[in-house]
């Protein structure tokens, strides 16, 4: 009852590799991981791929299927057209070990840096008392199977190796959130730690992590945003800090909000009367109003637009056939930096006065 389908699987190691073509039998009810196993049992016995439970519970078989980060065991073949080519590549954010296996040690290092649960002093084992509604908030995050798809898709590290040092990633933000919301955790500075040491401020809430989570954990809405909001309250967010800096330049002199920006930035205190904004000297009433309400973390982020594709529904060029590692320059190949001064379209407020 099986039909032959066309698969392209990336084979190689850290020295490079390419997509190899396979015609594989596919039967009703199978998932992508079954096809990888069939390849191993037939033409490619040394095809490297991680897997364990094959039930979406262990998070081992993370891979990119037609460019989407997914679990191989949870991607049913019936979601593809009969004649559709299925392209399987390793997670892009982590260095390739071999074939579909990547070096995910980045995640384990970040896990190690995240401060552990601090048991409450003076409560003996067996005497822990918590209400179901209180543990449920943390339990959502403890559903995490550590597939690292959220880490893989997060653009802060996906194309910026240099950010890996300072940025722990969505998986560890929800770890921090989980502990923050744990009814009996004795450590009280989880949010501040997430901001100062885990790089929470790098996250600009594009919700990609939530979108790829196979456990459907609301990473951004229930984990990252509440932490950011509360941390904003405490003046650690760079946006708020930036606001207060701009403000201090004296362009909006009505009030003197400096360190008291807790109320100033977010709740637009009217201490000395009149409105103020931390967004600089804009006189556009709409911008002013927006600045009044502070940063709206709940805003609906527009969905990514569909790229221009060819007749087959494919991008004309894939990353894997592209002639260099990582993404091309958004400024175009013909632009080099620094730009010559005459190419700058910048007018100095004083010197260039006409």
């Amino acid at each position: 009852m099986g039909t032959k389908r066309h698969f392209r699987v990336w084979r190689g190691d850290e020295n490079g590799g390419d997509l190899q073509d396979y015609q594989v039998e596919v039967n009703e009810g199978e998932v992508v991981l079954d096809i990888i196993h069939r390849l191993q049992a037939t033409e490619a016995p040394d095809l490297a791929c991680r897997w364990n439970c094959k039930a979406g519970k262990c998070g081992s078989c993370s891979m990119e299927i037609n460019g989407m980060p997914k679990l191989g065991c949870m991607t049913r073949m019936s979601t593809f057209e009969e004649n559709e080519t299925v392209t399987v590549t390793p997670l892009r954010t982590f260095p390739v070990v071999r074939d579909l296996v990547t070096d995910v040690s980045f995640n384990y290092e970040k896990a190690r840096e995240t401060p552990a649960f601090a048991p409450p002093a003076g409560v003996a084992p067996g005497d822990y008392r918590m209400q179901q509604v209180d543990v449920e908030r943390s339990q959502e995050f403890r559903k995490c199977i550590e597939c690292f798809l959220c880490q893989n898709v997060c653009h802060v590290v996906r194309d910026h190796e240099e950010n890996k040092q300072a940025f722990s990633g969505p998986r560890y933000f929800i770890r921090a959130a989980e502990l923050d919301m744990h009814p009996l955790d004795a450590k009280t500075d989880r949010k501040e730690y997430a901001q100062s040491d885990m790089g929470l401020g790098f996250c600009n809430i594009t919700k990609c992590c939530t979108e790829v989570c196979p456990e459907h954990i609301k990473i951004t809405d229930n984990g990252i945003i509440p932490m950011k909001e509360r941390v904003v309250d405490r003046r650690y967010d760079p946006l708020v800090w930036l606001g207060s800096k701009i403000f201090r330049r004296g362009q909006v002199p009505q009030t003197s909000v400096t360190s008291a920006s807790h109320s100033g930035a977010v709740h637009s205190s009217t201490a000395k009367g009149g409105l103020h904004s931390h967004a600089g000297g804009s006189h556009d009433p709409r911008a002013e109003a927006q600045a009044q309400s502070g940063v709206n973390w709940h805003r609906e982020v527009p969905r990514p637009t569909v790229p221009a594709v060819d007749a087959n529904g494919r991008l004309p060029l894939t990353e894997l056939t592209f002639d260099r590692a990582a993404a091309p320059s958004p400024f175009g190949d013909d632009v080099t930096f620094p730009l010559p001064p005459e190419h700058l379209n910048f007018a100095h407020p004083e010197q260039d006065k006409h």
Partner: protein
Amino acid sequence: MTTTNRIERHHYDVVVIGAGGAGLRAAIEARLAGKKTAIISKSLFGKAHTVMAEGGAAAAMGNVNSRDNWQVHFRDTMRGGKFLNNFRMAELHAKESPQRIWELETYGALFDRTKDGKISQRNFGGHEYPRLAHVGDRTGLELIRTLQQKIVSLQQEDKANLGSYDARIKVFAETTITELLLDGDKVAGAFGYYRESGEFVLFEAPAVVLATGGVGRSYKVTSNSWEYTGDGHALALRAGATLINMEFLQFHPTGMVWPPSVKGILVTESVRGDGGVLKNSEGKRFMFDYVPDVFRKQYADNEAEADRWYKDPDNNRRPPELLPRDEVARAINSEVKAGRGTPAGGVYLDIASRLPADEIRRRLPSMYHQFKELADVDITKEPMEVGPTCHYVMGGVEVDPDSGAAFGSVRGLFAAGEVSGGMHGSNRLGGNSLSDLLVFGKRSGGHAASYLDQLPARPKVSMEALEAAVETALAPLQRDTGENPYHLQQDLQAVMGDLVGIIRREGELADALGRLAELRERVAKVSAAGGRRYNPGWHLALDLRNMLVVSECTAKAALERQESRGGHTREDFPAMDPKWRRVNLVCSLEGDAVRLAHKPLPRMRPELIGLFDRAELGKYLTDEELADFDALVSDADAEEAGN
């Protein structure tokens, strides 16, 4: 010589092989005892098969029904194991599991709660009271994550005090041990390879804890992952230890049978605990026809009483869907063989018509999710298709019940969790394995540490043994004429699934032994294509050797035991035989060959056997043993009268 000189060497006090629940708990204990500890994980850290456990961890905390206590738990465990359990292990397990669960809360675990804020406990097959601490239906994940995070917290302490995370406890992820190395009769080290690079590594350590899990990959339909190749069983055998109860394998009664790609994945027993019922293709709730005499007292014989039990368990008998697993598996098997199965060869498990959709989603979230995503089945609307699947091996390394130290000729070897044998007798109750991991993980880790304290000198690894281990490991890569390891595995799975499966017959078992002997020849010549870096074909070729020897133990013991009991069902000997209850079958290795011996079961202490009714014991014990029991009771009565 040059090859062995270049091998990476590490010195540890305790090496724990296996990073599931038992391994991590053992490692925590060894580290807390101040020993430098290595954890060897065949997969990435935190991916172990423990994550698959759904139902919960059994511990008589009495949070939901205050009449529960360790004696009741002990009794249920012995009953479930058909009295073949090592009584001391069952006793320690029942006594210590509550502390082990409470301890997890101090590591950060978040179990579901009762109204008064305690750990909630749920009903499960074979347990008299609600006893399973749980987190929805992902308790195994919670357990592994909690232990993983506890290890991280110990590493953070070490970083603060000693400057390095790895100073006293280190995880070697994606590392496989292929051989234990001995100095005389003492463990001296463990040899293996890194999966990523294919490079070899030697751990020199005087104490090794095996926590490698089970053997399910030798079966066609199994819930077990690729790691479950009986490594620990085989390592122990080759090191001179013994295995017991290898004929007892648990087939989980309700694994998914559709779609084919996920055949074998478990549907948790709590679906039945929460009201799910089994029906055949004629729509009949058939379990009422399969209540064995020994269970008549506890299980309802009509639907009305069974349905009342969910609300009023004190005044009604339990629904027969909650019979021990082997009874349910056998019943399903009989229905399918009688032509009343589903198209995919299972039966229907129906929760949709029993609970409102919201309630199902709330109580069984990951079950709902799993069926929706994998099979496009909405369990709140339609029944599931389930059938028996190989799930757990009761047999394993024969150990001292208190310390987990392996019997046989080897010293310094410990075992805990599924790889050890005895605790569950002939059949394991659901929920007892997560608590088993914790109780005996802690014990074996602690005793491995104290074994070191009384050891006069560290054993040494011999160069010859090391060279031999290297040669064995490289052999499949150097041959290019042998067979593909995947084909050999399929053949092995066919032999075990068809001939040493859930229902066994003498002729088939004898046939199986012949075929296993042929497979042994072929496995000795297996060849793996490709290089040493992350080469799954090579890894499987090395695992096959272990799977084969363990399968031989199972087939031999299954042929020897001429009765049906728990996880061992002989069509030609369908009844339980009290004479066989007194015997453990013990496997050892003589050269290359598996040797089988009979060994009497340890005798239960009077105060423990006194926990049972005479009527119940009558179903299990020989007349001679019953006479002893009567004498014991009349002695006690006389003593009471005398006082």
